[in-house]
């Protein structure tokens, strides 16, 4: 047994530092692979966005303006929940701590969530929900195109499947944005208001950090900034046809992908996680 440093000496801090330098890490615990950690993070970012937006969209079920819309929107929510299962399932695998998709969805607190802030914005009126969906879909579509070309086949496979679903989401949300923008005076006004209100949450989709840089360098996930051009083109095309004005400002709220959220997420989780929290360990 190695001798312990003499705790009574005034140089205890210095001794501790020397000790640490001599034994940089516990020899039996594997060092967290920085790449794995970034990959885990990337999977949470995409999976949490699908989870939180799917949750929001599902709030409409039974309350939409027409039966056909109720059914269509539920399909979108179902797709997003299905994608969540895949992304978070893979995240749990990559993390290697035995956590399932459900563990990740239901047993993390807000600061561990990595979704885009736009996904947690309240539904507002139906136009607001559709505009949020359109802005997200246009990004999601680009993102999944990038991920489908991932050097990691597990990601590529999920992205290919999700990409087909999201192509349809985008077709539908674009179509509705055009129709409502170019509908009545009231529908136009509501859609413009929704666009103005959501605009400051759009920029976050294209802000990268060092984790994104790592993933992009390894060809695992696209650099967020690289998605902007495609997104801009979709927006210009759809919003012009919708006779809506793209807002001027380029201010952007951010932090969701790093775990700093709006107040909304806490309420979403309080609701979503209630049963898992109230009956710990129960099986459903």
């Amino acid at each position, binding site marked *: 047994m190695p001798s312990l440093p003499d705790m009574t000496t005034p140089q205890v801090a210095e001794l501790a530092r020397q000790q640490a330098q001599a034994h940089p890490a516990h020899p039996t615990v594997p060092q967290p692979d920085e790449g794995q950690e970034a990959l885990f993070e990337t999977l949470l970012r995409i999976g949490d966005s699908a989870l939180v937006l799917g949750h929001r969209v599902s709030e409409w*079920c039974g*309350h939409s303006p027409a*039966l056909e819309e*109720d*059914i269509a929107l*539920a399909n979108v929510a179902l797709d997003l929940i*299905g994608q969540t299962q895949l992304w978070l399932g893979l995240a749990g695998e990559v993390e290697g701590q035995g956590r399932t998709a459900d563990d990740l969805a239901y047993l993390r607190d807000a600061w561990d969530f990595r979704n885009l802030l736009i996904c947690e914005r309240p539904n507002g009126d139906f136009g607001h929900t559709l505009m949020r969906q359109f802005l997200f879909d246009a990004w999601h579509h680009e993102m999944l195109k990038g991920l489908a070309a991932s050097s990691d086949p597990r990601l590529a496979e999920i992205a290919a499947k999700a990409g087909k679903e999201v192509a349809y989401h985008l077709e539908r949300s674009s179509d509705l944005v055009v*129709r409502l923008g170019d509908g009545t005076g009231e*529908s136009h006004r509501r859609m413009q208001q929704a666009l103005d209100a959501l605009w400051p949450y759009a920029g976050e989709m294209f802000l990268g950090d060092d984790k994104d840089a790592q993933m992009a360098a390894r060809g695992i996930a696209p650099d967020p900034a690289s998605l902007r051009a495609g997104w801009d083109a979709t927006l210009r095309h759809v919003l012009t046809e919708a006779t809506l004005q793209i807002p001027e400002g380029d201010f952007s709220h951010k932090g969701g992908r790093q775990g700093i959220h709006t107040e909304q997420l806490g309420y979403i989780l309080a609701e979503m996680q209630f049963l898992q929290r109230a009956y710990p360990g129960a099986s*459903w």
Partner: protein
Amino acid sequence: MYAQLVKSEGTKAREEMTPEEIAFQERIDRGEKIEPKEWMPEGYRKTLVRQIGQHAHSEIVGQLPEGNWITRAPTLERKAILLAKVQDEAGHGLYLYSAAETLGVSRDELMKLLHAGKMKYSSIFNYPTLTWADMGAVGWLVDGAAIMNQVPLQRTSYGPYSRAMIRICKEESFHQRQGYAVMMKLAQGTPAQKRMAQDALNRFWYPSLMMFGPSDKDSVHSAQSMAWKIKINTNDELRQKFVDQTVPQAEYLGLTVPDPDLKWNEEKGGYDFSEPDWSEFFDVIAGNGPCNKDRLGARVKAWEDGAWFRDGLMAHAEKAAARRAQAAE
């Protein structure tokens, strides 16, 4: 059932019938289907509009008590299943409204009658869903009771109604099973989960029995509807069948049906059971159930809040059509 206390019109003895009415009745007796534009007695048409409309309203109001738990479902899979099920109910409402529309009434008109309180929906949806176990109880008992009625209605005399029921029954086959699966999980779970399951059964048992409506042995409306094959079985027949089917399922779960007088009757080959409190039923039908105001309020709100959306899309479609017409000139 989803259509309770449907008042039927024009009950007539055979000797009072016109030759047309006799011919119509004979077609039904031969098992022929009546199709939209064919001649039918006005009473047949009105009764069908009332019944199919009530059935459709029940589907969309029925989305609410379960929709209530979509955002609180305990796992991703349960959330997806519940959402898919509640979505199916919207679809079933849509199919049924379409069937009613073939009788010359529009969906919007029916919606307005619902919102004005002039048409009813099933009493069951005025009960609250208080715990997750209610998702199990609703699927198992409420859908179970509904299926009991809907399966024979596939043979109803009106073609579009019959076809809607066939499609609905096909889609609904998973609904009751998912409810029972929720109950099984709870019944095999922790003591708290088991208590939750029992509590849900306690609250939903009698309201489920009420779904079949009061005894109709003496009801002239039922007699006429049965002659027209709009109604296939009596309320009492279906209720008995439901109890006989459900009691062993409850036993399998290890749950107790909240009826001290429930007893197997060897002679009739079915259970003897207590009647629900019919005064409660009539209170609920009259608007005084625990959730009547909330349920109808939610439907009215969805309708009113959505008006600008429906109008916006209609306006765009008209503008686009006008632009196309102009371009073609």
